[in-house]
């Protein structure tokens, strides 16, 4: 069953500096989120993960493709979007920037209720949301200002602001990136608890694969506008099949096996430019399997350079790699 789904999403922006050039920030993505599921969307800066999340929230209207909620395609008129956002709420990365410094905690959390005209029982709803976000007793926080709170408490206020509308989906963009390490675990534990207690679904956008390991059920890895590997977290992270995922996992600081068995695969260069997506497999110019001749030996090097890979289905497990298709014809979709 799917609660939130994206089909063939394309988001294009005018490229910086060059007239007429287009950056394909999201370049064909399918993604499904089931009720009560935590899905992590990982990738490096510029891979399109935040743009994809914003289009799932209805903040960006994709150039092509459909976002559906509960099987119904999203409409982009103001009233439909407003209804949609009661169900699908956003949690931002930096709680200090997300909170108005002149609003009390109570006002910050009640704002969503007022926008949606839910004026009955406001204090109870606010108190309940704060308590759910772990700020107890909630009344003690009502009149506090953001500057009086620690970073972790501020992030809880932001989460309470999302919870107060009783949404079914939370989309969190790097929810703990700006928090101290010891506080992070508590916020992640909160997201897990909300899923267990309220059956909340969450899409967590992150560059941190450790976070995915900590809380997510499924993981989608993005590279240059496409999902290149998707599947259950344990499978993708312990047996990554796409050379890009393999490289990302290999550079994680690890203490398992004393680093002896796992040589880090450090890719050279930076994430390429979304306005110059390479032909063939978009990863091939940086792919270690192309450089070291593995692709050549397997007879797919030509395909890597010239043949575009199909869009992966939104559930997985699936891998967008000519090499994997060549080796395992049954798995990972069609070549």
């Amino acid at each position, binding site marked *: 069953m799917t609660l939130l789904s994206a089909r063939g999403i394309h988001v294009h922006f005018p490229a910086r500096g060059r007239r007429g050039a287009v950056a394909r920030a999201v370049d064909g993505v399918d993604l499904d989120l089931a009720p009560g599921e935590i899905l992590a969307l990982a990738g490096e800066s510029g891979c399109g993960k935040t743009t994809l999340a914003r289009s799932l929230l209805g903040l960006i209207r994709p150039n092509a493709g459909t976002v559906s909620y509960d099987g119904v395609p999203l409409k982009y008129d103001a009233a439909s979007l407003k209804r949609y956002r009661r169900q699908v709420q956003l949690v931002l990365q930096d709680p200090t920037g997300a909170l108005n410094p002149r609003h009390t905690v109570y006002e910050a959390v009640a704002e969503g209720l007022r926008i949606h005209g839910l004026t009955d029982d406001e204090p109870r709803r606010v108190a309940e949301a704060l308590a759910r976000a772990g700020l107890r007793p909630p009344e003690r926080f009502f009149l506090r200002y953001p500057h009086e709170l620690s970073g972790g408490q501020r992030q809880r206020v932001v989460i309470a602001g999302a919870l107060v509308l009783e949404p079914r989906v939370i989309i969190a963009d790097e929810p703990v990136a700006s928090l101290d390490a010891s506080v992070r675990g508590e916020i992640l534990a909160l997201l897990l608890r909300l899923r267990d207690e309220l059956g909340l679904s969450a899409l967590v956008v992150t560059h*941190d694969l450790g976070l995915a*390991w*900590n809380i997510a059920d499924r993981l989608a890895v993005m590279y240059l506008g496409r999902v290149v590997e998707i599947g259950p977290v344990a499978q993708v992270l312990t047996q990554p099949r796409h050379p890009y995922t393999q490289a990302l996992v290999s550079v994680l*600081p*690890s203490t398992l096996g004393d680093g002896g068995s796992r040589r880090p695969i*450090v*890719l050279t260069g*930076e994430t390429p430019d979304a306005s110059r997506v390479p032909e063939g497999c978009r990863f091939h110019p940086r792919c270690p399997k192309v450089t070291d001749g593995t692709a050549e030996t397997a007879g797919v090097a030509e395909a890597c350079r010239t043949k575009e890979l199909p869009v992966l289905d939104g559930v997985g497990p699936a891998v967008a790699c000519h090499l994997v298709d060549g080796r395992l014809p049954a798995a990972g979709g069609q070549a």
Partner: protein
Amino acid sequence: MLTVRDLRVTYHSGRTAVPAVRGVDLDVAAGQRLGIAGESGCGKSTLASALLRLLPPGTEVSGEILLDGEDVLTMSFGRLRAVRWAGASIVFQGAMHALNPVHRIGRQIAEPLLLHRTVPPARVQARVEELLAQVGLPAWRANSYPHELSGGQRQRVMIAMALACEPRLVIADEATTALDVMIQAQVLELITRLTTERGIALVMISHDLSVLSSTCDRVAVMYAGRIVEEGPAREVFTSPAHPYAAALAAAFPTVGDEASRLRPRGLGGDPPDPAHLPPGCPFQPRCERAVARCASTDVRLRPAGAGRHAACVHVDEEVAA
């Protein structure tokens, strides 16, 4: 190479004294890599700035910072200028702010070279290109402005500058924090290789204990202005002796480790306000293992196994047991 003894740094804000560093000892040998881990407000960045006397005026500093036997805290300003860049250099987080946006990269790398007359003026251009090559940037990048580079490239430029005058000590303060994992891996590999090749001592400061444990030889964990645990990097990360070091280590899950799968671990409470530290062990209000005497004993570092020290009342018992 670098010896720090009983370093104390106190900021004064209005009438309140804020002790940011409260008695820190460090020893780093040539070619050794020391990691300093801790969270915001623990005093690690103050410590880094103190090592090169970069703290704001009016800050109270005491103790000894010996760089090759010379005390940084008492040296003349002229001598200090010579030591900065040439003896020891520092790479800060956020290279966008550390680089001058209106000057080309090449000119900024050349500046310390010209100032310290490390190479004859005629050779400066060649040396700049050599430094860029060392950090994996093409020579034509010397003509770029900082905004034309990506975050990872700017951080490489900072490293090139830090190495320009062939210092004996490099201090990296959250030098890779803002970078993507792959770029971080590139920069860490670069720092490790260059410091090893040249026998440069490295003090690497980060909130990320997992990165430090895989990059450094030794690690010191700071909490509330003091070192609460220090020892071989890998051991401190895998079998921490201090409850705070344990909580910090657990906050970085090891991918593949079943114990952390769907079990994020954090620490309740918040770090203490340095201006109002709790009595006894400053970690005691958040500590799961706190006992009555933790609130009254000011615990200092004590031996906790071979080459290791920790500041916790439980350590003696465990070592004895």
